[in-house]
């Protein structure tokens, strides 16, 4: 094997590629060649590093120096400084927002410092397209042990003892699932992997499949042995072409090396694995619907029982595990259940990967021990709220989840504690929202998603979500009426209790949690026709507090509809007839002089001017005018 002085682990995850990794790679190659370093320094394209917000990112080994926001223009300088002169190039290093000092080492960057990598153990360290690199990091050792030295019972016991729970969202104990399927007698069984990640904003599974496809395959081999399956499918959504490509490559390589297919490692155990492309229906992430989809039928959930462990794919006993769940299996087998339990809590052991997005400084993929408080994820890893704004809520669990408010931020991330708030841990989507977010609009956003993605089979989900959506739309458009909140809650609860599958049973959660924690917003939407976040256009009047306005002209320049007038250094004014309520001026003003008032608010009268200062109209005044 060739030896290199340094390895440049350049992230080629979907996010970084979109930010320009490939151009950076070409420039790097060119530059290294030019400087005669091509034989000394190797560029490795890795899977997703997780720090997507700062992409393209690269870490240099063995120095462990981390570079971010690479651009083609900076490459010659970087190569010269770091690789010729041996001086890490500070300009491309991470800087803490306040302190401005550069942090060269990846492990010291707050985003990485608080993470514990188990699922993502190989992220940024290996080339996912080379099985040798996976093997060099203990890859397939666990599968080999499971196949040669362990009985199915021993495997199941280890997995059960580890306490690992399904990471797809429901958190069902994985070992127990395997045990059920292993006890059903059948000549044909299926081991399946759910890579149909569908939550808006979630990309944990995609990253694992792209960065470390073999970890999923290895988990499936171990599971297959445990339940006695000789056939398997990985169900991936077709919108993940890179994941599909890497998985197929990994399957081919593993088959080539005798790690898949007939008589694996001469143990006599067969396991054939294929990929099935999903057509992008959210409901196909539901296990019974996913199985129907593989059968080539319309993806609709089926009542349980019979459970898939008894009658699953083609009515044969089947186990379906999520990508992230499977990626943890190999280390559990290698290191034992106690090792796994060393992190997390009694009932929620191990680590969980989150796709941290929204109004935080550090957007990206993070893996944390379970039990960690939400606050630490958002502030220590996420680096707090962007642009100095204030935190409003964090949305967990995607369309099935809920919004957790500020006062519950110390809730530890465990299945039980999160459920107690009304949200769910879910598959790992974590969307942080700041004070610019309208919570009614947020609920509406998720309901629009679920109403669209409902398969249409059961009445409460098919019609109920549509009615919830219609009502939320009415409220955000200013057509809410007395009693709507109670009706929403009542209908939401009936949908929860009567729906057929997980989609309908959780779809009302965003409505229920936003009402629970932000009821005042609903009330001000309905009673005062006032969206205080300034998001719902029909429910706002933008006015300028003339006392605060410095007449800088920022709002005037930003306004797309030329609705602001005023002389320089004189207080400006918004012409209400022209204003389109786009909120651009509000974002542009540095002096917080733009106020969001209820619909129909008349800024002309002196009392009203007083209100603008205090920021609250008397209850009901605006309603009358609306």
């Amino acid at each position: 094997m060739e030896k290199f002085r340094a390895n440049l682990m350049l992230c080629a995850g979907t996010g970084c590629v979109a930010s320009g990794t490939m151009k950076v790679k070409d420039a790097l190659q060119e530059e290294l060649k030019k400087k005669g370093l091509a034989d000394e320094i190797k560029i490795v394209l890795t899977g997703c590093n997780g720090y997507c917000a700062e992409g393209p990112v690269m870490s240099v080994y063995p120095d462990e120096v981390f570079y971010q926001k690479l651009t083609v223009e900076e490459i010659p300088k970087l190569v010269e400084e770091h690789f010729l002169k041996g001086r890490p190039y500070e300009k491309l290093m991470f800087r803490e927002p306040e302190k401005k000092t550069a942090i060269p080492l990846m492990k010291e960057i707050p985003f990485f410092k608080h993470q514990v990598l188990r699922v993502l153990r190989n992220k940024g360290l290996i080339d996912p397209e080379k099985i040798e690199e996976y093997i060099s990091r203990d890859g397939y050792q666990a599968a080999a042990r499971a196949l040669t030295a362990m009985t199915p019972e021993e495997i199941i016991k280890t997995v059960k003892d580890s306490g690992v729970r399904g990471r797809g969202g429901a958190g069902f104990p994985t070992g127990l699932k395997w045990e059920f399927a292993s006890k059903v007698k059948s000549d044909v069984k299926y081991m399946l992997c759910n890579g149909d990640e569908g939550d808006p904003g979630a990309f944990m599974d995609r990253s694992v499949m792209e960065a470390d496809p073999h970890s999923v395959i290895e988990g499936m081999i171990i599971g297959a042995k445990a339940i006695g399956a000789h056939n398997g499918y990985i169900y991936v959504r077709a919108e993940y072409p890179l994941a599909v490509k890497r998985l197929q490559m990994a399957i081919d390589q593993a088959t080539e090396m005798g790690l898949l297919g007939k008589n694996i490692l001469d143990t006599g155990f067969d396991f054939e694995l294929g990929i099935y492309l999903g057509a992008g229906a959210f409901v196909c992430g539901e296990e019974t619907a996913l199985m129907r989809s593989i059968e080539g039928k319309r993806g609709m959930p089926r009542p349980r029982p019979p459970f898939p462990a008894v009658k699953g794919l083609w009515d044969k006993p089947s186990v379906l595990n999520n990508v992230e769940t499977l990626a943890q299996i190999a280390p559990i087998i290698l290191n034992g259940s106690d090792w796994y339990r060393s992190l997390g809590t009694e009932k929620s052991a191990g680590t969980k990967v989150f796709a941290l997005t929204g109004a935080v400084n550090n957007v990206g993929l993070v893996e944390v021990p379970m039990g960690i408080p939400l606050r630490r994820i958002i502030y220590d890893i996420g680096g707090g709220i962007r642009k100095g704004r204030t935190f409003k809520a964090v949305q967990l669990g995607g369309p099935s989840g809920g919004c957790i408010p500020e006062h519950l931020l110390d809730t530890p991330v465990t299945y039980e504690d999160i459920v107690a708030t009304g949200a769910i841990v879910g598959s790992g989507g974590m969307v942080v929202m700041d004070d610019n977010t309208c919570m009614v609009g947020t609920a509406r956003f998720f309901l629009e998603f679920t109403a669209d993605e409902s398969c249409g089979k059961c009445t409460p989900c098919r019609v109920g979500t549509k009615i919830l959506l219609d009502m939320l739309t009415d409220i955000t458009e200013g057509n809410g009426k007395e009693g709507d909140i109670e009706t929403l809650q009542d209908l939401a609860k009936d949908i929860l209790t009567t729906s057929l599958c997980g989609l309908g049973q959780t779809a009302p959660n965003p409505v229920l949690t936003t009402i629970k924690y932000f009821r005042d917003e609903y009330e001000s939407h309905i009673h005062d026709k006032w969206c205080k976040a300034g998001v719902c256009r029909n429910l706002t009047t933008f006015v300028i507090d003339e006392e605060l306005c410095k007449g800088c002209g920022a709002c005037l320049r930003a306004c797309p509809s030329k609705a602001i007038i005023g002389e320089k250094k004189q207080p400006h004014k918004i012409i209400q007839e022209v204003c389109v309520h786009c909120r651009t001026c509000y974002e542009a003003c540095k002096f917080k002089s733009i106020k969001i008032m209820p619909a129909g608010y008349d800024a002309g009268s002196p009392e009203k001017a007083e209100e603008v200062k205090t920021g609250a109209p008397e209850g009901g005044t605006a309603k009358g005018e609306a």
Partner: protein
Amino acid sequence: MVELTINDKAISVEEGTTILKAAQQNGIHIPNMCYDKRLRPYGGCRLCVVEVEKQPRLFASCSTPVAPGMVVKTETPKLRKARQTVLELLLIHHPLDCPICDKAGECDLQDIAYEYGKPEGRFVRHRKAAPPDVRGPLVELTANRCILCGKCVRICAEHQSRGALGFIGRGFPTVVQPAFGEILECDYCGQCIDICPTGALLSKPFKFQARAWFLEEKETVCSFCGCGCTLTLGLREGKILRSRGKEDNGRSEGNLCGRGRFGFDYIYSENRLKTPMIRKEGVLVPASWDEALSYISDRLKFITNSYGSSSVGAIGSHRCTNEDNYMLKKFMAGVVGSGNLDSAAAFGYTKVQSALGKAFGLETHPIDLKAPLGKEAILVVESDISVTHPVFGLNILQAKREGSRLIVADSKETKLTRHSTAYLKMKRGTSVAFLNGLMKAIMDKGLYDRETISGVEGFAEFEKTVADYTPEKVSEITGIPGDEIVAAAEALAKAKSRMISLTVNHTENTKGSDTVLAAANLVILLGEEAEALQIPADYANTFGAYEMGIRPEGGKDLFDMLYQPGSLHALYIMGEDPVSAFPYNSKIIHTLKALELLIVQDIAMTETAKYAHVLLPASSWAEKDGTFVNAEGVAQKLNKVVETTGQSMPDWQIIRNLSLVMGSDISIRNIGDVSEEIAAMVKAEGQPEGKRAFQPVAHSEGEEPDAEYPLSLVTRDVLQHSGTMSTRSKALDLVVSEAFLEVGEDDAKKFGISDSSHVKVTSKRGTVYLKAKVSDEIPSGTVFTSSHFPHGRVNALTFPSENGTPVTTAVKIEAVQG
């Protein structure tokens, strides 16, 4: 058994029973909209939710199996609230056009809304208002009213194995439609109409005919095939407006095919006979009953006096009741004194009975429409059972779904071949060779009890005959690969239970008594009971007519009477139309023209009636009481549901009157007298002790194609028709109204025939013109057609067989220019 409690009532049900079924079995009602016992649990409507103690969630009772100790509540305030909400959701967008909906009055949605609904909903949204889809025949789809319970989609796919309807779209905009939103093209069984809980699927012929509450429902037995389904007829002002099946009702347990559901309107055909008619100066003119019966009496007496009673013959009918046929037999024996009596069964069912009599020594053969259920292996030989006997076909398909191995040998794709475990593609008319091949393979592999079986009479000769049928030779004759024959033989022989089925109908020309014998040999070889062979009688009362003695006992049979001109001087035809329905019609016409007296007694002006000297108007099946015996031998009562048409009378009554006119007191006053005599007769007959014997048969071709007539014509039934009678149904004619010639793509090219063009078809016996249907499902060298349509005159080409061999007909086809 599982013990549980429902609504404080301790009950015990079989393991695996759902909560809903357990409740129903114990008289506890749980509302539901998407459940049907014929279908897999769906759990879609969510109305059947129940509370289970210690469980926070509600459970859909239709799909939740009972568990020991379960405590279930089906009526609680919480459930009432949940159901109310579900119902409210269903009604938000429902058009509420009940005033113009045919379903109103018997609509599940209305009923459940009445039970659970609230006077006003909380949500006001647009009501769906898409126009109904009226493009297809018979079935109208109004998506507005659909609540997406999916019953229609599932009964079509799961139960009928057709899959003509599906869901299109997702979530709220989901609709039920035929594939790609095209025109509904299906079996037109109408099961989806019966199962629809709202007015989304409706019968087009019934549309706007009557409000449900004005309909009077009466039951009778279907008049078409041998399944003998019970029809629930809806009448208003004495007219039948619709026909439907009712759950668990009758032999078919509520299932109906399109013929039973839509075909009843043949009784309202415009050419129904309303008065007797006598031919005067070459023209049939109306006459009074007195005149007509006196005329017949005089003529018959003259003929018997002149030529002897053996110059008079009669033809009975599978369309007529036991009572009618019994009276005809009694009239011929007692009044005329002739044994010249036969029916269409001579072409089919009689052959079956006589063959089985030889093989098993039984008088009548045990048939059970449920025979397929639970059998490990089912073999269907060259028979489109889903067409000829739709309900029997459903049971075969159900058996397959439940795990039976279904082996179908046929020359054309059918519903059964499409759903088979193994489809053995065979050349038409080679069933005997195929069956012999199976037996040879079974014997070669020693998969039978030689010790016992070799003791059966005729074994030695049988073994010798079958010895020739090596897989290679059979493969050459049938076209089925040798290994497939051997595999089928093994599957059949090794199965723990099995059924072999075929039909020998008078409208089919690829099988005969030889086929029955070969199948019987297979059953004997496998050491099976006679029940393992299921050859159901074709029509509504084929079995009954046979039982009533409509067969030549010492007299002339059908072949003598109809195909030997001059053998009779007078012929009495009751309920049969030989000119349209029997093969080689030019010969029949020749015979009829030579008669001195032709009496035709029928419900309508048939082709045969046009040659009659006297026409007697008979009442149709719906206009009289009586008895039909279905293929299983089950006698079922026929009820008079409508008044007779014109001056028509039930057949038995006409014959009674004729007897009286002829001066014979045949001691029959009313139908009760007939029934009593029949009961006494049936009682006297017992099933003889069965003695089995091998009846070796060799393969023989029908009419072999040659240079002049290069193709083989096969006649088969069309799903929407039954004999010639159904062609008078306007509803059924909307689906298929003419005979068409199915031609394979190769032959179409060879003979320059394009789809839907007219083709001249010629055999040694005649020429007809048919519309071509070019299909990739048709093997080359063979063309298919049906013989239902009088105006199609397919029977001008075909010929009958007395000896039991197949009668495929050699034909040539030519494109019609212009």
